[in-house]
């Protein structure tokens, strides 16, 4: 019999639970193998040390403690009993490692599903287009085309002409507030479009008027506001460069 096999069976040999044939083989091996004999003696010694550990004396008051707990269990109201049961169950979940990690994983999955459901079912009020329809129709058919023509002329750019039947509402959409778009146009509305040059220091200087307002005072007020405001200059390869800026200002009158 090999030493390795004998060593693996020494514990059972000590406890006399090996089948008789194997026990005889182990016995014979131990008789002539010094190393295995030493291991056997060590195991026997450990077993004897464990057996010689003094008996633990139970405190006399354990009886009284159990009695008190039993009485307390009887006197507790039903809510306290339920709480105790829940606490005990929860402590088992928390203390049993496998259950605890599975509970956490399940909780994470359930939370994720919950948020996905919430996101797909609930529509935020600001996305409720049906409740607040927006009038995307341009205020004037000729307006956007006229602005584009003037801008192209001032900048010296040849832009392809849009088909006459199609309207490009981009400029209106970009420039007008949503509130203004939903308000019907009135006679008091006014527009001004100004072309500015922005230097490398961020100062704006008017180059020309693309669209004149009906009220001249609006032109001077807008121009004053823009020239007194600092701008971030355009950059090219990390360096500030001069640029041009088109300011389109729409004054919308809202009644009520």
């Amino acid at each position, binding site marked *: 019999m090999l030493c390795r096999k004998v060593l693996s069976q020494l514990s059972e040999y000590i406890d006399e639970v090996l089948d008789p044939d194997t026990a005889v083989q182990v016995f014979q091996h131990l008789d002539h193998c010094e190393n295995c004999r030493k291991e056997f003696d060590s195991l026997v010694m450990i077993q004897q040390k464990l057996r010689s550990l003094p008996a*633990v004396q139970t405190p006399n008051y354990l009886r009284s403690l159990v009695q008190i707990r*039993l009485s307390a269990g009887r006197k507790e109201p039903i809510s306290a009993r339920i709480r105790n049961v829940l606490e005990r169950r929860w402590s088992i979940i928390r203390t049993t*490692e496998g259950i605890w990690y599975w509970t956490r994983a399940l909780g994470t999955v359930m939370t994720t599903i919950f948020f996905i459901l919430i996101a797909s079912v609930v529509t935020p009020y600001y996305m409720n287009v049906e409740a607040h329809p927006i009038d995307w129709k341009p205020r004037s058919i000729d307006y956007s085309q006229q602005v584009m023509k003037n801008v192209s002329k001032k900048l010296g750019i040849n832009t392809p002409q849009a088909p006459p039947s199609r309207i490009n509402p981009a400029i209106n959409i970009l420039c007008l507030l949503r509130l203004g778009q939903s308000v019907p146009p009135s006679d008091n509305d006014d527009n001004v479009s100004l072309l500015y040059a922005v230097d490398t220091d961020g100062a704006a200087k008017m180059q020309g008027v693309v669209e004149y307002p009906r009220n001249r005072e609006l032109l001077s007020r807008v121009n004053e506001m823009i020239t007194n405001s600092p701008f971030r200059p355009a950059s090219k390869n990390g360096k500030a460069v001069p640029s041009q800026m088109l300011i389109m200002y729409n004054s919308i009158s809202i009644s009520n």
Partner: protein
Amino acid sequence: MQPVVGAMYPEQMALHKDESAVTEGLQRVDSMAGLTFEELFDRYNSMVFGLVFQILGDREEALDVSQEVFLAIYRKLGSFRGESSLKTWIYCIAVHRASNRFRWWNRLRRRGTVSLEELLEKGAEPDFCASTNSGFQSPEDALLIEEERAEVQRLLLNLPLQQRIALILRDIDGLSYEEISESMKISLGTVKSRIARGREMLKRSYRRSTS
């Protein structure tokens, strides 16, 4: 034969009248083992406390868990079917409760709220263990023996939980492999391997500590 409920718990009489399951359980125990709850407590309290103490290594915790064990025995008597012996049934409850408490400790230790070293130190205190010193030993010998026992107990507490329990049940409480299998709810092969590994680890750590 004594009444189902012993004289020690007079306030429990009403409880037994109300809760028929418990009464049935007590009667069943009475008929199968010839024991009342009081007798059952008298017979098994040192066994339960000793086992729980050896597993946890702390007297206060052992006291607390022992109470829980007897409360559980009291509550579960109605479900005891006598498929295993009363002794292994009680062992099973005690092992389960003590293991849960130890795992809970381990979790706290990982969070740094409880020091295991402190725990082991407390567990190694011999003051509450019955002294078996004979009158023929010199004080020096008695001290050496006490120190060695404390060391073995400390090494035992350092073993992995399942191996420790198997070793305690086998070498300290003297249970058979079959009884350990029933108490720990594991197969006979697993019992053998846990005991063998536990002894091997204990032997190595003992060698290290004495060398």
